[in-house]
């Protein structure tokens, strides 16, 4: 095997990418199974609650110690039957209404994700060596590196916060993006055109991808936050399960095992502000590069317009969090709109809009 042959390296890179996608798909299934199990565990508990409530109306007054023990699998234990209301706790860590430990499918999901990530990394590095430059100079490569960074951000965040429940979303998103990249955007290795021969390609695009990774997680957390908020409202209103609501229709009962909406909101905020700082840097680095390459630092090129729009939306998000009446669900919607704009900028603007950023190589 001759690893100095670019064509061969590129072929191996493709094999690796498809393998990574296959493993991501398995991880996605494992994560989905975990969510399904959470839902049925919640259903079981709620059914038991009803029976118990009939039998002994006074039961459940003593809050169970198991709820705060947290990390073990507590759902199966009958000790957890507290009154529904007291399950909404304001504490930051592990404040799920029904704490649920790490099921075997969750562990399998994480392990598969790490494996797929390693193969994905190998695919990206091989593409870089095949092209003899950074592997993010056209849409195909940008998607490959961008999704790798989304996954890297996710795995790093997992070390600090238990966001494993986002596994379905993250692997799903990465799978869809990689699928589009491999099927629609694939291009052969080509040398860099003069306009892209710049150190700023390395910095600007890399940081933009990193910011995208942060925004993706922030988006996922904000979405779950909104769903969780609905569930909590139903709980407060006294309807234990949101019958007839979206969560019920989609059988999102697993929400009871996830952190409270307040916790999700704080997590989303923390991750999104890192993304915002990186995006601000992306915007500035882009201007410096534009000055070098095109002789003006800002010209309202379509790509520049959308980078600006995204920046302003997230500035709005940060402001919303500090504005009375906008904390909570409304600011969450801004994070969702912000990430939609990021995806639009990558997927639609690059492909369908006319502009100077014609590097897509399509």
């Amino acid at each position, binding site marked *: 095997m001759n690893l100095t042959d670019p064509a061969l390296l590129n072929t191996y890179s493709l094999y690796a990418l498809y393998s990574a996608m296959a493993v991501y798909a398995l991880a996605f299934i494992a994560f989905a199974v975990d969510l399904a199990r959470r839902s049925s565990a919640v259903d079981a508990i709620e059914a038991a609650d009803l029976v118990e409530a009939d039998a002994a109306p006074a039961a459940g007054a003593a809050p169970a110690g198991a709820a705060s023990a947290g990390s073990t699998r507590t759902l199966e234990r009958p000790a957890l039957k507290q009154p529904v209301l007291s399950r909404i706790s304001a504490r930051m860590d592990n404040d799920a209404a029904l704490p649920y430990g790490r099921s075997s499918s969750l562990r399998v999901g994480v392990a598969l994700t790490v494996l797929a990530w390693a193969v994905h990394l190998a695919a990206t590095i091989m593409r870089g060596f095949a092209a003899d430059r950074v592997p993010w100079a056209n849409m195909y490569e940008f998607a490959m590196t961008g999704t790798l960074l989304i996954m890297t951000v996710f795995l790093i965040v997992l070390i600090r916060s238990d966001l494993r429940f986002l596994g379905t979303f993250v692997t799903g998103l990465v799978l869809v993006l990689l699928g589009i990249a491999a099927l629609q955007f694939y291009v052969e290795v080509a*040398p860099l055109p003069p306009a892209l021969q710049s150190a700023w390609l390395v910095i600007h695009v890399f940081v933009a991808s990193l910011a995208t990774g942060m925004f993706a997680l922030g988006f996922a957390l904000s979405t779950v936050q909104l769903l969780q908020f609905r569930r909590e409202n139903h709980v407060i209103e006294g309807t234990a399960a949101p019958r007839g609501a979206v969560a019920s229709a989609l059988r999102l009962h697993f929400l009871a095992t996830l952190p409270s909406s307040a916790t999700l909101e704080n997590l989303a905020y923390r991750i999104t502000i890192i993304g915002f700082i990186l995006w601000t*840097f992306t915007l500035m680095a882009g201007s410096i590069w534009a000055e070098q*390459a*095109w*002789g*003006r630092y800002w010209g309202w090129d*379509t790509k520049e317009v959308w980078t600006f729009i995204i920046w302003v939306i997230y500035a*709005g998000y940060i402001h919303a969090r500090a504005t009375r009446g906008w904390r909570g669900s409304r600011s969450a919607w801004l994070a969702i709109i912000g990430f939609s704009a990021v995806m639009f900028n990558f997927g639609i603007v690059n492909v369908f809009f006319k502009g100077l950023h014609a590097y897509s190589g399509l």
Partner: protein
Amino acid sequence: MQPKLGVTGWLRWFWRQLTSMRTALFLLLMLAIAAIPGSLVPQRTSDPNGVTQYFVDHPDLAPVLDRVQAFDVYSSAWFSAIYLLLFISLIGCVIPRTKHHFQALRAKPPTTPARLARLSGFTTRDAPAQTDAATAITHARTVLKSSGYRVARFDSAGESSVSAERGYLRETGNLLFHAALVGVLITVGFGGGYGFGGQRVLVEGQTFVNTLLAYDSFNPGRFFDDTTLDPYTLSLDDFAVSYEQQNLQAYGQPIDFTADVTVTPKGDAAEPGVVKVNGPLRTNGTNIYLLGNGYAPTITVTAPDGTVVFSDSVPFLPQDANLTSLGIVKVPDGLSEQLGMIGFFYPTQDKMASGANFSSYPDLEYPLLTLNVYTGDLGLDDGVPTSVYALTTDTLKQQTGGATGVDSIELKPGSSAELPNGLGTVSFVDNDPAASAAGDFSQSVPRFASFDIHHDPTQVWLISFSALVLFGLFTGLLVPRRRVWVKATTRGDGSVHLEYAGLARGDDPALEAAVTAMADRHLKLLNTHQPVVATPEPT
């Protein structure tokens, strides 16, 4: 009620509304929405040809859009109104906050709350025996001060406490961020006014003097004084290109463009320089950018009596990736009729099945020049400025090519052809006949480069403000601002009970951990000081 008071009252109400957080948020969202149309409709500043085309494609819609400034979104009245209101709001918001922040910087941390147990990270410890409350708090003060807290101490009978606050940099950073944004806006708004931008096409071997008349086009800023142009000269010595030849997937893709130039400052020695696509040449207060390039075939037109009536290297504008190029030759004088020619240049000529020429490779492998000849009134004498890159053929009679039935003139480097109607001859001059004779055409046709020359005295300001924006953002978002309290209470038995708690001011994920760490450090310090304090007391 007096009307005057009413007006001030109303103004004050309006000002309070404008500088409220809710308005700031509303204006930010409006700004995001207002920026969208500019990406859907071509803009005059970034895509003037697109606008022209839009008027052709949508003759009914375009004038309506034009009336609402949809082709000039980012300088439109409505877009400007939004961002100006936003920035007025910002200034009105930042000034009182700055005043308030200065006061906070001088103020003492607030008194310790009576009940710490309700606050974040609340934790308790028992002080080592023999440590009294006052000493414990002295040490707590030391620990907090060494961690960068500002502290205030409160003592009363049987109870001492220290109140500490840190992270003023958070608000400082936030204010700096907003102020620097104003700086960026002002620099961008006025900066353009003091500079200029100009374009100039140079063929290899040509020289340009940095004066107003030498530019092909010149856009001075509002406050720019033409007489301050520094008349240095710029010569294009050589323009080198290289195209991919190894990788068949990307065959013919450009890999490098390099313009070797000589810059001669007025009254100074000449110095060599290089301009590349991503590498502008910064010299004599201007930045020189390489924006385009192409071929400039040298064409000579000779009258029947042998006098040369036209001889020039004419820049041909590239039309596709393989540099099929289009150029115009106008010969108003010296022939029996005015002569216009539309030329196509193919650096590597090939023929389609239909017989039409095309270029199959961008470099000079097999160059060919074709010319369609027109005669008649070129319209140059009407005093209306005409583009050197366009030929208005309405008033002209076509002599070769197209529907005339006469073949277009086709020339290889070094060859000549008779013009129709006995007008004379046209030649395509070869720059390097010796090499061409040996089959190497690579030097046969000169190249041109188009340069953008800019002067912008505010770039340094802009980059400085941007750095401040980024710094302010980092500190404003990531530095935690928090208050921490330590309280020491003497129990009935003389032992000392220690309480610790914190309060986040803004998002602060690490607060609880910080309070615990503080308590641990404090207790460690108390324990190490134990031998000193622990002199046995006679009881």
